[in-house]
């Protein structure tokens, strides 16, 4: 596990010597609190309840959102900003949820933001001591967006319970960066920043794991529907997920299809993935 709990940047003469070193940039966090106009990237902070999202939020923004050791503390989203390198980031702390499938108000806040807010990066904070249950949410987030960083938090507690979590194996299986952390002790914050930055700039090409439904009937229905969705909303980044939601009879997604909210997602799309999708569509046509 990497331990890097130094946040203070080196003093001026050292800084001059270090400017070319990649490690130096790791120390360049400026907390902006709520002063966040003209941000370059939007980062969403998701995760199961009580995994330390608010602790990470506070560590990055310098804000002091009330943290508490109990699930369900954050029900509305909190926003703050930080400066990393020369880029300004807006960080949005979402309510903790176990899933994005059911329909309680807090889960809808989280899902709508990841879907319609189109964050540049979605950070999913997971509890290393309860990895399996936390991965349910990670997999669902990966269905909606490619740009994900997993913060593997509470590594200190996992160690206390005699658990070893292989973060590299996990990163390979999920196809996105996985950063081991102990946020309460400030460990892993630097590595998390670096991963966020790399994914936001497109320097880390994620290859997200998509859930495989070993169910030919379901998969062929999905395939049919995906074709229709991509035809109706060309350039939609997560047609497969929308198809699954429609098959599940998700009323809020049906509404988004009907009133055109979903259609707007195709216009504000970030430039990188668009060309490949267009090519695929041409092939379909």
């Amino acid at each position, binding site marked *: 596990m990497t331990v890097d709990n130094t946040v203070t940047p080196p003093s001026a003469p050292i800084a001059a010597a270090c400017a070319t070193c990649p490690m130096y940039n790791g120390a360049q966090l400026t907390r902006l609190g709520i002063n966040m106009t003209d941000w370059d990237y939007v980062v969403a902070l998701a995760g199961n309840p009580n995994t330390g999202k608010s602790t990470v939020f506070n560590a990055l923004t310098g804000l002091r959102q009330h943290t508490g*050791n109990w699930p369900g503390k954050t029900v*509305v989203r909190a926003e703050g900003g930080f400066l990393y390198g020369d880029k300004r980031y807006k960080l949005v702390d979402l309510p903790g949820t176990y899933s994005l499938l059911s329909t309680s108000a807090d889960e809808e806040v989280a899902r709508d933001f990841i879907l319609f807010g189109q964050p540049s990066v979605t950070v999913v904070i997971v509890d290393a001591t309860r990895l399996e249950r936390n991965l349910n949410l990670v997999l669902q987030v990966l269905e909606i967006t490619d740009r994900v960083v997993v913060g593997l938090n509470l590594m200190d507690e996992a160690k206390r319970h005699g658990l070893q979590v292989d973060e590299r*194996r996990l990163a390979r*299986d999920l196809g996105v960066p996985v950063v081991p952390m102990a946020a309460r002790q400030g460990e892993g914050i630097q590595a998390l920043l670096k991963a966020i930055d790399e994914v936001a700039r497109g320097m880390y090409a994620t290859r997200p*794991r998509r859930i495989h439904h070993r*169910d030919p009937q379901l998969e062929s229905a999905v395939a049919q529907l995906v074709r229709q969705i991509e035809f109706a909303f*060309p350039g939609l980044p997560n047609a497969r997920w929308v198809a699954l939601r429609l*098959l599940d*009879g998700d009323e809020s997604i*049906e509404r988004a299809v009907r009133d055109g909210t979903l259609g707007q997602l195709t216009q504000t799309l970030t430039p990188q993935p668009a060309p490949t999708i267009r090519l695929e569509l041409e092939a379909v046509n």
Partner: protein
Amino acid sequence: MAINTDQLLDSARRLRAEIGGDVHDRLTASIYAEAEQIADRAVTQSGQRSRFDFDRTLDRILTSRRWGFPAMFVLLLGVFWLTIAGANIPSQILSTLLLDWGYTWLHQGATLLNAPTWLSGLLIDGVYMATAWVVAVMLPPMAIFFPLFTLLEDFGYLPRVAFNLDRLFHRAGAHGKQALSMVMGYGCNAAGVVATRIIESPRERLIAIITNNFSICNGRWPTLILMGTIFIGATAPPFLASFVAAGSVVAVAILGIVVTLLVSAFLSRTWLKGETSTFSLELPPYRPPRVWQTIYTSIIDRTLIVLWRAVTMAAPAGAVIWLSSNIYIGDMSIAGHMVSLLNPLGLLIGLNGVILFAYIVAIPANEIVVPTILMLTMTLGANLAGAQPGVMLELDDAQVYTVLTQLGGWTMLTAVNLMLFSLLHNPCSTTILTIWNETQNRKWTMVATLLPLGLAFLVTFTTASVARLLGWA
């Protein structure tokens, strides 16, 4: 390009019917299977587990059927005892500084500047006094209570409270998560009402919203702590006084939980009938609380923010109180008219006109109830007693007691009923507004406002009648 969205939704519906109705279960099942597979590969459990499992041992006590509630009682008692015993001395220092010295200095300054009497009266006797009282009465207990409460929260105790209460909420036909929004309400009811968003079923959420009022909020703790200290604690021998005082505050808090359960049961059997949902609550591990950080954030986030809110409310309230007691209509001030109008009703329920008037002034914030009562009792009471207004300024607890009993004519019944009224009465205007925002429904907002108020009148009327019948008051 022209594929109709209706067409799309139609074919989704058709495909769903073809697959059969269990899409949701199939999706969930494959997500779980996938998660299990990935987790299995990534996690290895080393052979030697710590022999002594601290969490489980502690949970066996704190969430046990037999010891769960006694443990909760002892922990709450401890928190309030520390608050009451610890707040005593700083409270005295603050009242000497702000109420005795500060007030005198300001008046001397005003005389030097030849300020007109009405101006110095409005600003010093009204605005300054109300704010100074709020600070002196509220700051010390809050600066002790909030960090202690936050430490318990940081440690992971609150979900255990929810766990203990879950069974009772179920029996009341409410959602177990209501215990969590209720606990949130102990900080602020508006926050508690927002916290009910974690409850999926609209029926159970409404119950949680309406009953959140019975969680004693920041603004009401000081009233209870003061009444508990100067009236109830004072009946015990000195070495027991702070224990008895803390016990009385805990008793009111527990009564609040009982009322929450009773009202929930009533609502779920009358206007809000329906099925009770099940849910699973995860008990987080106990974590060693980060003491300094907790003290720092709870002082900044909770204590100072709550205090600031109280001060901003108290300043205009002070002006209103001063004006209403110095503008005369006929031979009585406006406050005098109001108080004598409300007095019969107040006395009927074991309170008095001053207290009811204070609760009207304090609709925006419960924090200013006690200062308002004190100021009105002194101005109006002094007139009754034929003394000059504003004579008694160095108000420590003993003197507050003297003012209330001698000028205000308070008895033990008044103090007990004030505690009950404070627990039960209508939510503050911020909370009412939040309820409206969350429900978007006029009827339920009215119910959430008037049901507690009606209950407050009913309960205090009953206790007053019983006390009078038995010859206690």
